[in-house]
């Protein structure tokens, strides 16, 4: 966004360092989400366990970034674009952390599902939702890294598709539950996973909104992205 450098080189470095930590956190989160989806769809209990037990890494880096932002505010009193960057970062990492939590949930539900050994075979139905979710997350992180407002605005459209896909999957799962009441407990876990995926889509959309705020200085959270 800015091309000019601060008069204080130290300040430049501090901002750059926080930015790169956010990108690193984004990478970790993306990795967790990918793994959780694979674990779910392939019913891979090993991978599910790994995901469920790796969330602490994301939490740790979130705390680090929070700390750096607090120090930046106290020491530098950022203004204008710098201020918006710090605010956007604090918000982005909150959503990233939540996405991490959702991935962790998927990991745990998947561990349960693999131990239930019900032959529900609904996982293929989730793969389209999983694909869409991983795409929106990746695009959102990419828009943030490149401060790309146009991409960020486009992504809002994708979130609507995710909501539709979630509705479709829910209908199928509910129908299935009505037909096979023995499997209700299993199906509930599957629905919770779908719900977690849909939430990841929502958090990704939030990230896009912060990108618009950051670059344009406009809050688009509660209005439609044009």
């Amino acid at each position, binding site marked *: 966004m*800015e091309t000019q450098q601060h008069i204080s080189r130290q300040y430049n470095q501090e901002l750059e360092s926080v930015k790169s930590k956010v990108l690193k956190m984004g990478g970790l989160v993306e990795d967790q989400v990918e793994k959780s989806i694979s674990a779910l769809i392939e019913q891979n209990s090993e991978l599910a366990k790994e995901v469920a037990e790796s969330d602490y890494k994301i939490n740790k880096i979130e705390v680090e970034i929070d700390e750096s932002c607090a120090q930046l505010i106290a020491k530098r009193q950022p203004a204008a674009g710098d201020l918006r960057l710090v605010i956007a970062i604090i918000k982005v990492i909150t959503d990233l952390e939540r996405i991490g939590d959702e991935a962790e949930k998927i990991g745990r539900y998947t561990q349960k599902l693999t131990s239930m050994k019900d032959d529900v075979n609904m996982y293929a139905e989730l793969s389209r939702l999983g694909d869409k979710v991983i795409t929106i997350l990746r695009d959102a992180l990419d828009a943030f890294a490149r401060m790309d407002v146009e991409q960020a605005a486009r992504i809002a459209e994708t979130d609507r598709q995710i909501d539709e896909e979630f509705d479709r999957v829910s209908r199928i799962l509910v129908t299935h539950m009505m037909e096979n009441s023995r499997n209700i407990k299993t199906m509930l876990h599957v629905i919770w996973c779908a719900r977690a995926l849909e939430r990841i889509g929502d958090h990704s959309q939030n990230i896009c909104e912060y990108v618009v705020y950051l670059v344009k200085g406009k809050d688009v959270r509660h209005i439609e992205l044009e």
Partner: protein
Amino acid sequence: MINIEKREEFDIEIDKTVGKPFINDAKFSTRNVDVFYGEKQAIFDANIDIGKNQIIAMIGSSGCGKSTFLRCLNRMNDTIQDCHISGDIRLDDEDIYQKQQDPVLLRARVGMVFQKPNPFPKSIYDNVAYGAKLHGLASSKIELDELVEKSLIRAGLFKEVKDSLHKPGTSLSGGQQQRLCIARTIAIDPEVILMDEPTSALDPIATAVIEELMIDLSKKYTIAIVTHSMQQAARVSQRTAYFHLGYVVEVNDTNIVFTNPEHQLTENYITGRFG
């Protein structure tokens, strides 16, 4: 009006002042104001309104013309040899540079507080009473006493000095002296108070006291303050004007200037970047 040669020095163009330089219900309006010191132009085509009962902050790096502009508003520049002003400056829609305008009367309406507290070498009482006497604002000793007390109270100094009104003004601390100068200014009951870096010589506590005072005073007076502290501008003012090399680059609501300025030069200045 704009000096093209000068403008080419910028990487980024200053076409005209961006933001909201004009407002309804202006106390002061300046239009096409140029100021020269001899051959050297210090202000280029300043067009800006100052709102009634508001605080406007003027920011910008050293030498950009903030003090020069401020001094235009009460014709303090008249006292500087070689200083020439053209353009239109109106107070309540009246040209303050018209022939029949008496600069002394103008300065009673538009008071000024300086960077360095400059009490007269007189008692605290006389510092405040001096201007009021000069302008015949009190008809008796009792009235004058009341006026002095009222002004000191408004300036937030009365409690500290009520038992030592006859000590010299210079015996006070820097922060107290500055409040004494403010009391002296408001004793004349001006309509506008100009403040040129009024807290730059003060500690944070004394600064906070003066800032509170400014906010309080702005209910009754119109205030224009020059400051090098961005935080101060952000804290006290409703509007902010950013000056750069003699140009008014941007005037906007303070909230906007500090979160989302329109002009790249404003952004560079307030975020501490090379402009």
